[in-house]
């Protein structure tokens, strides 16, 4: 085990996988940084520092710094994958998915299916997402709610450094296309990460972050930390919560969620996406249809409001879920009669 930040867990994993398999290729905007400048290559090493040092180690053929061309990046990832490489493409902010949606949604996600199972597209699309830095409406969004609904894609949302490592390695070794959603606010989060260069986390295997039998809290990404904090507070009052860190939105660990709700009878889902058609509603519907008889109270969903992400500090704070909002939702399920 080694203690490191979430961003370093990602960078190290990419490095190790590029060493292990020469077909792994990285591309994206400023993944190297400084190309064509006086400062020279690696002037920044990736704006999130998740690709520092890769260029020096593997060279320009395998670490491709691109112009600002999301469609070209996403499309090239698809082409590289069909042609036999294992691309790890970065879209600098998940919000930019709008620019290149076709290449992900209509191309990468669908190649295998359309081509009758006769192709593989082992692309990993890394997208930093989420709020917390007051980056406002066009640089703070989460997008898991869209890509989870796209058949053909797998969607991973690590909540801590160890999961970032294990899930990313799994994604790179997976032959299906994977959308790897890193939360930008978690980049500086520190945690223990296994040293094993083959440490992988199987997909569709949620993590039980806290255990208790009174209420189930389901969360992903940055929301997991909020849920854990809330659960710890509630434990002081004798309320035991199962906190389920989904890790992967697609495939979804349905069993973990349903098993927990069958014991607790109460569900709170925390989702950073706005309330219509998000992951919370998806999970609420799953539980309502498959564990209805176990429910003792209506399902509570803790989400932002139906608005874009606002700028001012107080506004972004009010917009986002929080441990207090999660705890309040838990108490609400316990008050129901």
């Amino acid at each position, binding site marked *: 085990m080694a203690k490191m930040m979430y961003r370093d867990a990602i960078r190290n994993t990419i490095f190790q996988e590029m060493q292990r398999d020469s077909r792994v290729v990285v591309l994206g905007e400023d993944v190297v940084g400084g190309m064509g400048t006086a400062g020279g290559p690696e002037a920044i090493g990736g704006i999130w520092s998740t690709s520092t040092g890769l260029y020096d180690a593997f060279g320009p053929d395998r670490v491709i710094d691109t112009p600002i061309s999301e469609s070209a990046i996403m499309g090239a990832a698809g082409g590289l994958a069909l042609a036999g490489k294992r691309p790890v493409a970065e879209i600098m902010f998940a919000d930019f998915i709008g620019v290149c949606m076709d290449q992900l949604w209509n191309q990468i996600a669908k190649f295998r299916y359309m081509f009758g199972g006769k192709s593989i597209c082992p692309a990993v699309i890394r997208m930093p997402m989420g709020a917390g830095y007051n980056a406002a409406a066009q640089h703070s969004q989460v997008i898991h709610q869209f890509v989870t609904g796209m058949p053909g894609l797998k969607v991973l949302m690590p909540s801590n450094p160890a999961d970032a490592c294990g899930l990313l390695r799994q994604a790179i070794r997976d032959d299906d296309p994977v959308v790897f959603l890193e939360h930008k606010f978690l980049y500086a989060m520190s945690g223990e990460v296994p040293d094993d260069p083959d440490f992988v986390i199987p997909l569709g295997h949620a993590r039980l972050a*806290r255990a*208790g*039998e009174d209420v189930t809290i389901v969360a992903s990404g940055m929301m997991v930390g909020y849920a854990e904090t809330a659960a710890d507070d509630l434990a002081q009052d004798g309320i*035991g919560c199962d906190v389920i860190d989904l890790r992967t939105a697609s495939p979804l660990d349905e069993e973990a969620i349903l098993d927990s709700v069958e014991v607790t009878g109460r569900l709170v889902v925390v989702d950073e996406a706005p309330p219509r058609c998000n992951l919370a509603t998806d999970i609420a519907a799953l539980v309502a249809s498959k564990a209805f008889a176990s429910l003792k109270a209506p399902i509570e969903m803790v989400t932002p409001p139906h608005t874009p992400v606002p700028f001012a500090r107080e506004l972004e704070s009010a917009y986002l879920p929080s441990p207090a909002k999660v705890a309040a939702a838990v108490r609400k399920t*316990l*008050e129901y009669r």
Partner: protein
Amino acid sequence: MSRIRAFTMPKWGIEMTEGTIAEWMVKEGESITRGQTICLIETAKITNEVEAEYDATVRKILVNGGGDAEPVGALLAVFDEGNHSDAEIEAFLAEFKPAEGGVAAGAAKAKADPAPVATTLAVADKPRIKIETNRPISPEALRLAEEEGIDIAAIEGSGRGGRITHQDVMKALRGPASPVLKGAVQVEADDLTVFASPLARRIASQTGVSLAGITGTGARGRISKKDVLALVQPAAAPAAAVGTPAFVAGENRPEVVPFDRIRKVVAQRLTQAKQELPHFYLRMSASADAMLEMRKTANLVLGCKASVNDWVVKAAATALARHPDVNVQVHGTDIYKFPHADISIAVASPKGLVTPVVRQANLMRIDQIAAETRRLIDKAQAGKLSFEDMDGGTFSVSNLGMFGIENFDAIINPPQGAILAVGGATRQPVEKADGSVGFETRISFTLSVDHRAIDGAGGAQFLQTLKLLIEKPEGLFA
């Protein structure tokens, strides 16, 4: 006379605000004679037959049997002598207005009336209130709130724009939740050396089962909860089980019985009494041998069948007449002191607990009391107690002795000031006059008083007299 006559919801007693037609006994077009039963009307307390006061023809029935409650004064049917046209009947209907002395007027009258008109007993109508509000509220929610007398000011609307929904009112009717909490549980962290589902991991932690070596049958070879449970509760292991066979609990599904009308009212009244009246309890026991002897003799001599309770009623009534400060009703900040004891006796009936009143029991002879209680009990058990039978009462006697209860504390029935709880007769060892130990039959009493109106000394003195009358029952014939 040749009028069109309106048959409206009658008002039985000052507190009645509404009633329900339980059943019509006549049909439109039918000729009825004076004294014939027209219908059964049900209130919160009783169901009563309504008899025709004159010969007539039933022209129109406006309210169906078994339907919703109608307020007092509401038009239920129209009678005449069969000599009006349909048009005239329709015209009559169009012009009809319920009488002025409706619910509101009646309530005001009760307050102003100096003579203490009998007011509520244990079971009373919850008045259907009228809610005027600008708040958004669904029609169903409004009706429910009015029927149940819920104050919507206390309700936060959960509907769109703060609208109060039916669910919100239902929630206000239910009490607060009190879930049984189990608290947090410690579980080993998932390190993926053993690939087990979160719940399997927790069950293993809690039951001390080791995950190592379990073959997973879950998706992708994951150990799932049933794999762990198979080890915790070995399925069908009939290993020479000598001794106690394992008990396997099945389902313990409750039958859910919501409060009916009467129980709702009783619940509300009793809760109110227990919460609001400062109950004060005085306990006393009396030797009953003499009274039991005299009962036997009196039953023979007078040819009646007085029960032990009848004798207690007689004794209590006599004692109350001597202690009028215990024979009271409390109305707001006024104490109504009654010269005579109208004793409410608790009787079990098919409709639940009812409390008919033995009026002026202090003036009755024991055989008269016996006859009266017999009459009332029979009526109660036939479900035929009338409102008048249960109206009023200045004091209650509640007897659980026949169930072997030694003593208990009863809840006062407002507006009465006190209630006497009577336990069963038990044989007790006592010290006799000559110092030896003998046995006598004793009965335990608890007097609950409303301490706002009756103080300890007053209650104690009443009990002293009661004890004396029971132990020396010849005093009841003085």
